[in-house]
């Protein structure tokens, strides 16, 4: 089949950038979307032109490296998958597909489709952990956890940090990502001692990074490849308000 790609090209963060259009012929419907980009890149290289830069690694939907706006939707038209899991069978022969990088002030474009997502790492650094040092942990089974809580914690913990939620949110908010991380630990007994300190630190960092605020548009959950729902945002808000308004975050 033949797919026409309208792709965002940008040399560096300072470059204003522009769309370029390429038609790629002879693509197999079995190919994945990233393989389509591979195919385009091989051609560009042969022609001595700069290939399109895009982030990717595992190509099976778990590392969270890949992610672009495909037809204006984060990770493309199909729900609950990452861009690398999108296959060309989702498109028709002759389709024109627009590909854009994630756009948010807190995640500047580095080149073409690659953005800088280190802001998400800094949010985790602000408090997204349980402060235990290596060694000295009690026997694993000495901390029983209600199965329902453990399963819920797992649901939140499956976040792959892809930032599709930020990209799709009309406000450029990172609420779902932060809610997932905060929620994972808040759901477990291990996370309780630092629960309120953690939520305040992470949210404050999130806001300091320049992400937008949440207006409950629910677009994030619609594109989250791991199906993390906005109920986690409600839990995040609750914990934050309890901590902040309730003054539980002593010393912060």
């Amino acid at each position, binding site marked *: 089949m033949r797919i026409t790609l309208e792709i965002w090209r940008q040399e560096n963060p300072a470059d204003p950038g522009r769309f370029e259009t390429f038609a790629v012929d002879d693509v197999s419907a079995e190919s994945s979307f990233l393989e389509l980009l591979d195919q385009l890149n091989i051609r560009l290289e042969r022609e*001595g032109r700069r*290939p399109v830069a895009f982030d990717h690694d*595992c190509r*099976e939907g778990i590392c969270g490296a890949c992610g672009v706006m495909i037809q204006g939707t984060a990770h493309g038209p199909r729900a609950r*998958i990452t861009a690398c899991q999108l296959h060309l069978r989702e498109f028709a022969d002759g389709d024109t597909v627009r590909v854009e990088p994630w756009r948010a002030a807190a995640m500047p474009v580095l080149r073409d489709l690659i953005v800088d997502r280190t802001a998400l*790492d800094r949010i985790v650094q602000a408090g997204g952990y349980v402060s235990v040092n290596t060694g000295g*942990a009690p026997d694993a089974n000495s901390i029983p956890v209600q*199965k329902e809580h453990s399963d819920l*914690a797992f649901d939140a913990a499956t976040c792959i940090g892809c930032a599709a939620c930020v990209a799709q949110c009309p406000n450029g908010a990172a609420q779902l990502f932060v809610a997932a991380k905060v929620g994972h630990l808040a759901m477990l007994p291990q996370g309780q001692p630092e629960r309120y300190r953690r939520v305040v630190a992470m949210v404050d960092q999130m806001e300091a990074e320049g992400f937008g605020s949440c207006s409950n548009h629910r677009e994030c959950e619609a594109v989250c490849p791991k199906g993390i729902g906005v109920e986690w945002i409600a839990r995040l808000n609750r914990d934050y308000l309890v901590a902040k308004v309730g003054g539980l975050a002593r010393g912060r």
Partner: protein
Amino acid sequence: MTGLDARVPPGALEHKWREYRDDLKLVAPNNRRKFRILVVGSGLAGASCAASLGELGYQVDCFCYQDSARRAHSIAAQGGINAAKNYRNDGDSVFRLFYDTIKGGDFRSREANVYRLAEISLAIIDQAVAQGVPFAREYGGLLDNRSFGGAQVSRTFYARGQTGQQLLLGAYQALSRQIAAGTVRMHPRTEMLDLVVEEGRAVGILTRDLVSGAIQRHAGSAVVIATGGYSNVYFLSTNAKGCNVTSIWRAHRRGAFLANPSFTQIHPTCIPQSGEMQSKLTLMSESLRNDGRIWVPLRVGEERSAAEIPEAERDYYLERRYPAFGNLVPRDVASRNAKHVVDEGRGVGRLRNGVFLDFAVAIGNLGRARIEAKYGNLFEMYASITGENPYETPMRIYPAPHYTMGGLWVDYDLQSNLPGLFVLGEANFSDHGANRLGASALMQGLADGYFVAPYTIANFLSSHLGEGTSTESQAFHDVESDVRARIDRLLAVQGGRTVDELHRELGRVVWDECGMSRKRAGLESAIARVRDLRDEFWGDLKVVGTGEELNQSLERAGRVADFLELAELMCIDALDREESCGGHFREEYQTAEGEALRDDERYSHVSVWDMSEPGTWRLHREPLLFENVTPSTRSYR
């Protein structure tokens, strides 16, 4: 056999590690700050090591090529992690885990290391749970276990099909905490391009900033390589696209020994290749073999669809050949048998390159709901990749390169022959012999990083107190010129072939001749072919752009250049080992029934390759002494 003392401490197997630890020298808290340690890699091994060293108060620099430490390839591990907790009361013990691992590795690993691994496995689970890793639990609130990869006890801890992800996030969180505390400096999107060795000791590394292209020098009192495996030498593998051998290979070229490079694991349950442009293969968790039945049509060239083939005309070849273990035989055996039936022309699918993994009986017995609860996400993944519905038609699977048991040689301290260079995780060769058991790589990575390296590195550093580090030495200068020259060379070729094309071709050669089964003639021709490809690479490569920018083609070119050298050594190693063991199957050495024929007389050793003379390899052998177990023939019939 120069420099090949594994330095295994004396004493009874069960007490070695504890007694040794008691004797290791320490570094006082106020002195730790004075040491800078470079940890290359942020996977389970690297992240756990960097975090633990940071907690102790060392100054750590940690590097990864991804944009975040959390994306290291460990994230992709699905099935689980072993630990001899015996929570199930099914007779598991440290000794049994040790024995299973040694036996699974076909008696080609070092007893003392494996025992220590089994011992430490207990603490890993404790540590992970304390960090908040959401392992699967039972209604009573305690941890659930499953049997994995044919083990006869249930010792595998898991977090649905995302165990690696959850463990890595645990380690990443610990790492993040240290970054916030200022003990660890993280360098994402930074690739190690060379090792700096001064007077035989590792003193630093050279990196390239993958965004700006800047070449940077880093000096440290110790260097830790935890950069994972090199299955991508095959081009198509289950590894992430960026996985590479560069840091291992650069260290090897600077004098670090490389052990058993040809020991690679081909995983039996992957989705078969579907097209020419395919860029990677996807693993389907091994746990599927617990309920799925593997078969191919009896007839060569069968045209009917699976549903139309009557029971009598199906060959459940694993159940037929291995009545005791059936579909749960170890990976190497399952893979080889799949290759065998496909080579006979009985493969299934459009390209006739797979075998069926059929859940019809399981769905019939347990009901669709139970199967969905157990494997729902895997079935979904399969459907999204292949466009087929595995609830209705059997899955198609085929083996794919997955793990490399070979790696940099290390002693009991996980230190290479170059003092100051420590190697952890999949990057070293240490614990899995000729075949790795399922759910034991995660265990090893974390054991190395959390619980071994922090002790042995301290022991090493304790005798280097007060020695400064500097990036201004002649050695750094020389290595930097080498690194720059190499990049310039890659950019200067300006030929006609892209990196991916050449890599694909290399992959095909290695897969055909140094994959699931190997033979002398094939290996010899592969060596010649690899050399030709290398010439072609350096004569006809095309990389667009410069080194002073984000240039993904350049990154790949550098990695493929190293794979092209590694491939040759893999073939040489495979050729040298005239026996079949674990994943290394030499067609000349098999039993009448077609099973691997080990030769303990001649090959009960680690093959350790030394390239300190550039361009030639010298072979050292580290003999493997079995004092606590008796090498037996693995039999799964």
